[in-house]
């Protein structure tokens, strides 16, 4: 099977700005930082209703070159829907970047979608029947786009065949049962830590190539995950992302505060002919040269 239609465009919007994800587009950088997982101080602040760290994280990521901001408020023992509602309103008051609403709690996704002005990216659904049935109606109702992970009730597949099969299932269910446009489905090819399995990225790259060639849909994944447990994670991130991009990855939830990683992505855009004549690259160079030291 081979996808031979037009390039699919996943269009995300805030109230005033539009971002397009596509295989013929520049890579979409989704800032990962507004996430309390593993950040003890941030968790305590959120539990106390203090969202000042969000303001800092928004600023740093906008400056770093984010196209979209992921917002996760997964703090144990809190009212996650209420926190997410609050965080989304706050982020929208600070920036015009579109938002990726990140939660595994259905009620939180619901609250986030209700609070958001524009067309959001929902992060995420899996190929589990229960999750598809709970989340896809929300995605449809709000006209959002959604990141979908090809794992099911049994396992996170470690081979590309199973990931492809579950991707097929997700696309069929979402488009045929819920009427969600194929362009609004963003598949996560599942990037795993290289430190735990030395061949894992090869499987992920194969998955990406085949999803691009067979289904044509857009893709996003958590890129920082790949370097977990390794030293010098910035250099690994700066190598992994261009390799993934060349295998078909169109977007990533990633560390946009590290210039080395962002520059590697922008450079890959040039070589993949997604930056026409390198004009964005040149403009960025000029802006940097003009900025006060």
């Amino acid at each position, binding site marked *: 099977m081979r996808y031979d239609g037009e390039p699919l465009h996943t269009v995300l919007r805030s109230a005033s700005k539009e971002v397009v994800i596509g295989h013929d587009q520049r890579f979409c950088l989704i800032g990962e930082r507004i996430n309390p997982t593993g950040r003890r101080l941030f968790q305590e602040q959120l539990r106390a209703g203090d969202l000042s760290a969000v303001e800092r994280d928004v600023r740093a990521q906008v400056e770093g070159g984010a196209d979209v901001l992921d917002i996760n408020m997964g703090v144990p023992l809190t009212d996650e829907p209420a926190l997410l509602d609050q965080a989304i309103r706050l982020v929208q008051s600070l920036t015009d970047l579109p938002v990726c609403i990140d939660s595994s709690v259905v009620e939180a996704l619901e609250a986030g979608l209700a609070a958001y002005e524009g067309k959001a990216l929902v992060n995420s659904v899996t190929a589990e029947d229960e999750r598809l049935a709970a989340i896809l109606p929300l995605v449809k109702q709000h006209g959002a786009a959604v990141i979908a992970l090809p794992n099911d*009730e049994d396992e*996170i597949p470690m081979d590309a065949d199973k990931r492809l099969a579950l991707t097929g299932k997700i696309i069929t269910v979402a488009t045929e049962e819920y009427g969600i446009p194929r362009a609004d489905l963003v598949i996560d090819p599942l990037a795993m830590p290289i430190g735990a399995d030395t061949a894992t990225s090869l499987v992920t790259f194969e998955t990406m190539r085949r999803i691009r060639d067979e289904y044509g849909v857009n893709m996003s994944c958590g890129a920082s995950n790949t370097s977990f447990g390794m030293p010098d994670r910035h250099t690994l991130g700066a190598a992994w992302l261009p390799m993934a991009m060349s295998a078909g990855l169109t977007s990533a939830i990633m560390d946009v505060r590290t210039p080395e990683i962002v520059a590697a992505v922008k450079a890959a855009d040039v070589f993949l002919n997604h930056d026409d004549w390198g004009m964005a690259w040149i403009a960025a160079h000029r802006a940097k040269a003009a900025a006060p030291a």
Partner: protein
Amino acid sequence: MTPEEILQGLYDETLIGNAPRVLELTEEGLGLDMAPQTLLFDALIPSLEEVGARFERGDFFVPEMLIAGRAMAGAMERLRPLLAETGVETIGKFLMGTVKGDVHDIGKNLVDIMLEGAGFEVVDLGVQVAPERFVAAIEEHQPDIVGFSAFLTTTMPMFKANMNALEKAGIRDSVIVMVGGAPVTQEYADAVGADGYAADASATVKKAKALLHERRAKVPA
């Protein structure tokens, strides 16, 4: 090779994760009539302890921990039946599983490896382990410690469901309960009534040993 050289070799080769060499040295040691518990307690376990210490200092990284653990696990496969014959006890039995609704296992598997490295006997029930399966496995295996792993904020509440199932089966006090996983915190562990929490594989080993020590000090054998 002398027994001393065998022990030193086992220690060094385990430290760098050279699994084939560790297995060879284990065979050589056994060939020299060295006691399996000598190989375990005077070389393998100290080596894995050093791996844990280096990891905590930031000198060792996840893959180094993993291959060292695998090297030791290979030797343990050979030694375990011999140790059982001689009546040598492991330092404790650890029952492990990812909670129902959750299929994540990378972190859990790392914890398994480090626990085995520390001399624990680990029984891993895999992923999607329902409360009643934990209960049945505790009754079957009689572990010292049971570990619940969860990777999602949506599956963490299964800790409480598991605790309730243990209570209901009347086995809560027969086992130490530890919880862990990316979103889990000490506060959350306390809230569900777990006995212990650790943030990573190396910390889990330390915590598990400390909890066992505490328990054994309290309960006369």
